[in-house]
């Protein structure tokens, strides 16, 4: 029982990441009809927003203190982070909490990147065949990741989580199990809650704002909405920016779990596409449900008890699930008929 609960929890954070990326992919596909292979790169760019933010707030001033010497007899260099000079003790707190704080940097940056991408390139491909959309966004993804590689280097850059969130939460105690029977790393819990929050925000935005209603109407029937004299294109541009922000935030918060590297976008992209298709092309609830479903299944499949019965299952569970679901349900869990079938 504990073990099953533990695996369920373990699946939630990964599921949250899948769900967030898949949600953005689906938004872009549903609104713009574009198959965006550069979406994984947006996740990666988000992660590097965190790296940049940390780099910026840990910029140091180096002063030489002639009164003190090191063991080698040279003058001691005193390094003081600028943040500390300016904000005093708050500076140290800032650095400690750099990952969550980078959200503040990531939101505007990702929004701009998304809008520039859409206006500069993607908008020319609305009516093009999907194969060409795939090629151009794939090319863009390569360009983005190579640029990141050129700036940040090929090696992963690990990001520390805030000290306060480093421990494990005794989840078991909360639900009446013996203390320590079921613990769960705090940051993973944070990630899950964070992704749930972002998902809720996106759904709320689409459901309860006029902007969101117009966009949803546009997803269902673009021409009619256009005929009503509403400038749907501009709204769709903003939706692309929003999708970029969602992917970016997913990337920012994932950095303590996986040190960012320039090619992580591609790794997540393939899985996210599987997630989107399993959920049903164009269905937002489908993307979220499939994201968590596959994350949790993956976590269960990596249990030793299961691996001993079905060797190698942890390696293929996501793909196997995708195959089974697609063969049983032709359009995924929540897919609509005729969507991307030809």
């Amino acid at each position, binding site marked *: 029982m504990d073990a099953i609960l533990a695996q369920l929890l373990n699946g939630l954070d990964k599921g949250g990441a899948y769900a967030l990326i898949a949600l953005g992919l689906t938004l872009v596909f549903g609104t713009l009809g574009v198959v965006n292979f550069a979406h994984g790169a947006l996740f990666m760019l988000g992660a590097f927003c965190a790296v940049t933010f940390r780099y910026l707030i840990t910029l140091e001033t180096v002063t030489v203190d002639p009164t003190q010497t090191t063991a080698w007899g040279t003058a001691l260099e005193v390094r003081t982070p600028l943040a500390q000079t300016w904000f005093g003790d708050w500076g140290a707190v800032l650095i400690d909490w750099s990952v969550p704080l980078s959200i503040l940097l990531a939101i505007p940056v990702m929004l701009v990147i998304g809008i520039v991408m859409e206006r500069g390139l993607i908008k020319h491909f609305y009516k093009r065949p999907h194969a060409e959309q795939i090629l*151009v966004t794939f090319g863009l993804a390569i360009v983005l990741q190579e640029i990141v590689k050129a700036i940040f280097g090929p090696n992963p850059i690990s990001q520390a989580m805030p000290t306060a969130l480093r421990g494990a939460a005794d989840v078991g105690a909360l639900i009446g199990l013996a203390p320590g029977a079921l613990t769960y790393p705090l940051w993973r819990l944070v990630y899950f809650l964070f992704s749930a929050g972002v998902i809720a925000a996106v759904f709320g935005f689409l459901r309860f704002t006029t902007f969101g209603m117009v966009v949803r109407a546009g997803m269902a029937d673009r021409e009619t909405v256009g005929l009503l004299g509403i400038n749907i294109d501009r709204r769709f541009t903003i939706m692309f920016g929003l999708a970029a922000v969602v992917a970016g935030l997913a990337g920012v918060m994932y950095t303590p779990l996986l040190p960012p590297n320039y090619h992580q976008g*591609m790794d997540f992209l393939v899985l996210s596409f599987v997630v989107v298709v399993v959920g049903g092309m164009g269905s937002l609830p489908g993307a979220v449900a499939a994201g968590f479903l596959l994350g949790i299944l993956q976590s269960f499949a990596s249990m030793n008890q299961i691996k001993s019965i079905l060797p190698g299952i942890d390696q293929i569970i996501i793909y196997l699930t*995708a195959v089974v679901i697609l063969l049983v349900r032709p359009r995924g869990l929540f897919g609509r008929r005729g969507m991307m079938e030809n």
Partner: protein
Amino acid sequence: MALFQLSRRDALILALFALVVVTMPVWTAPFGANYPGLMQKFAIYAIFAIGFNILFGLTGYLSFGHAAFLGVGSYTAVWSFKLLTMDALPALLLAVVISGLFALVIGFLSLRRSGIYFSILTLAFAQMSYNLAYSVLTPITNGETSLQLTLQDPRLIDLAFTTRGAGLPTASLFGVTLSGLSGFYFCAVVLLIAFFFAQKVFASPFGMMLRGIKSNQMRMSYTGFNTRPYALTAFVISGMYAGLAGALLAVTDPLAGAERMQWTASGEVVLMTILGGVGTLIGPVMGAWLIKYFENIFSSFNEGILSRFFDFIPAPLHDTVVAIASKFVGEGWQLTLGLLFVLVVVFLPGGIMEGVRRIGALFRRGNPPKAGAMRVQPAE
């Protein structure tokens, strides 16, 4: 015999193509690409792309998992070397048969769906093969260390006639060693046969039915065609081409690793085909050559070469130009590749072959097409 007949136009194309392939060591020299290892890759990946195009270009099904068949072909060929003989023909034959069977199973299941659902099914099958090759299937694939020849291989057929040599053997054809240039010419001959068969498919009623499926599958059913076996046949043929290419990779270098089956390899053949021109005979070959050239040559450029290349630029600018250019070569060659994709899709949606057509039209009519003229889009 009907089997060997080609229309006059196709025969001419084949003859020209043969000339280009056979003289490859000559015309690649100015590009610095005339070493056998790379030319072998040119021939092998051209086969892969030609076969892929029979499925994607003719039938309209975008598979994202064709690297699996490439991998199966390689593994089969290496096992043929290990168990039977170092002769290349049985290895190729077995690889084509096994990858064909593999494609039959995967195609049968995947073709139950169309559009992106088909693409994701093929991707899922290929990724499963890749992941299993690394883990559970290690006895067959030798996992991360790759399947390779050893001094203890049984090689039943070979050793029935000769005694075991001192070192590791190399692949051969009727006793002639296939390495370096001879290896390239062997691949070239196989490429020409593969190209010829693709020409036959393109010109045949079968090829016309595949085009019909791509153009309007519903009309095909109401016209009396059972479209699924047609698509499955195309799938199996393209799987066999991939297996053949995989086997040739093993012939030129008797080693088979799982990374050959990864989705990046599947994506590469998609890009080759689109870059060259979907649905054309020559296009995928050009796409394959261009991408392999970039991969091998651009990645080997370094600042020293660039510095010499930009010698003509005066000194103050020289270092800046070299510094900028160096971002696009060597480690950064993929940046150039990515930019190339974007540029080709934006300006030449039909791939290289459309560029060739436009230039051809330019010469025929004598007046250039309107700048920025968009291609007529078929209604969706």
